């Protein structure tokens, strides 16, 4: 039985080690400060700045969109619809189902909607698709904490004459702030790491997008496309991207752990 634990720890270390072992040597200043020269598939010069910036645009955009839609819904479920527990549990069930839907399905769906409206692959299409994909994660992560806020706080706020929305966004949001930040981090990690949903919707280019209507490179696809190239230098770009993505994910993991453990000073217990 101890072997199974050792195996899990070993595999995680092995993954991180192998990615860094292969990727870190290629991770030069040129790599993170330049876009690929001469085409991402054949050009030997340049770096992956296009993918870094593209991924950050995409992940920030999708996370913000998901937050703007998700936070109000999590509040709605626990404050406005407090009386309708069955309905709210139904919504929770549905969100859990959506959480399980593979990202490739969101990608395929997003793509067919794009064709229907005649929209080309673009940063915006990617942001919308990815935000739908991370929305259930965002809502459920916030909901799990909001539902455990003591009802006394709701009553206290309401008895001062606040309406439900004021209670939600001026009181509950503060009470749950560390959980909301954690939910944002988890969703951001999902958004920046997913390849299947951006494959159809965001496209890939060598340049850094200057508007949301342009296609954009992303780190996962920078790995995926450049890894299949026969040219060593291009493959190095893929491994460097893998190292960058892993670093970002590890930072997010550590940061969200620190935040969720940190004492939230205004929170009432």
């Amino acid at each position, binding site marked *: 039985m101890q072997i199974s634990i050792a195996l899990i720890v070993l595999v995680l270390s092995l993954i991180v080690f192998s990615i860094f072992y292969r990727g870190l040597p290629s991770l030069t200043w040129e790599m993170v400060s330049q876009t690929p020269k001469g085409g991402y598939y054949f050009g030997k010069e340049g770096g992956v700045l296009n993918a870094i910036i593209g991924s950050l645009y995409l992940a920030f955009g999708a996370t913000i969109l998901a937050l703007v839609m998700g936070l109000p819904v999590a509040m709605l479920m626990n404050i406005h619809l407090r009386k309708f527990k069955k309905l709210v549990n139904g919504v929770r069930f549905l969100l859990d189902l959506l959480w399980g839907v593979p990202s490739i399905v969101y990608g395929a769906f997003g793509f067919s909607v794009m064709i229907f409206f005649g929209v080309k692959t673009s940063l915006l299409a990617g942001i919308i698709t990815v935000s739908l994909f991370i929305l259930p994660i965002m809502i459920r992560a916030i909901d799990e904490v909001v539902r455990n806020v003591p009802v006394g706080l709701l009553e206290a706020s309401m008895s001062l004459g606040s309406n439900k929305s004021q209670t939600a966004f001026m009181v509950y949001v503060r009470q749950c702030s560390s959980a909301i930040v954690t939910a944002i981090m988890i969703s951001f990690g999902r958004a920046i790491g997913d390849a299947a949903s951006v494959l159809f919707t965001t496209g890939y280019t060598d340049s850094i997008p200057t508007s949301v209507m342009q296609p954009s490179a992303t780190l996962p696809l920078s*790995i995926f496309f450049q890894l299949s190239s026969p040219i060593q230098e291009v493959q190095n770009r893929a491994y460097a991207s893998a190292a960058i993505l892993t670093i970002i994910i590890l930072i997010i993991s550590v940061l969200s752990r620190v935040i969720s453990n940190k004492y939230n000073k205004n929170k009432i217990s």
Partner: protein
Amino acid sequence: MRFLKNEKVLNVFLYLFLGIILAMPVLLIVGLLFKSESVLHANSLSDLLFSTEWKPFQGKFGFYSYIYSSVLVTMLALLISVPICLFAAIYLTQYAKSVYLKVIQPVIDILAGIPSIIFGVWGILVIVPLISHYVAPFFGIETAGYSILAGAVVLSVMIIPFILNILLEIFKSISKELPQASIALGATKWQTIKYVILRKAFPGIVSSVVFGMSRAFGETIAVLMVVGNVAQIPKSIFEPGYPLPALIANNYGEMLSIPNYDSALMFASLILLVIVLLFNLAARMLISRYETKI
């Protein structure tokens, strides 16, 4: 924050967002169904699901070999990861000091957070060469390593955190009340685990496996990178396969030029969606009996 005062306008947005989310599953299913309509018209459902004939130019779309690959990779991945998760969960909740769990939990969480593309790269760097240089020659087989087995190994690692987290929750909730009674009756620790805890946890274990199954079934990029992508009925696990998600991901560019091809791929997405939803539904039904206690 003054805008919060006027609830009427705000509520419109709140309920609109909720409406969008409630509509999502319906939209997904109806949208994909709508798009796959033309391929469903041109081919019979049984041909689509049970024929191996895949000739897009002739309008023949038999998904059998893809479905077969998907099922094979998924089952093999479960075969690897379920025992590991079971042993790990039993050890962590029944034998180890609670400090252990505190140390292991971050490892599980980090593993859960690693993007699938990274698992794919790891598969190419480590698993594929391992199979090609060591595992396959051991059985006297020659292979490049890109195989069903490689896909399953990568997949098994990816689903470990999902299965393990559910199992840990279930074992934790059960072990609080039950074992003392059993141990008081003179049973040994292992007997208690075997006859009391595992029996009590059985529906939960099944549901964790089904959850893992649905995760594995829909996983795309990591599997695609190591599984070889050859549409065939593999005769052994050292041969390449071509699972459904990989089919969709690999052909997104070309599909528009061939009639019905895009429709066929949307049908493939629909199959994925329906199967995953059914798995999830089943797993949640099974697990619901614990949730009142957890």
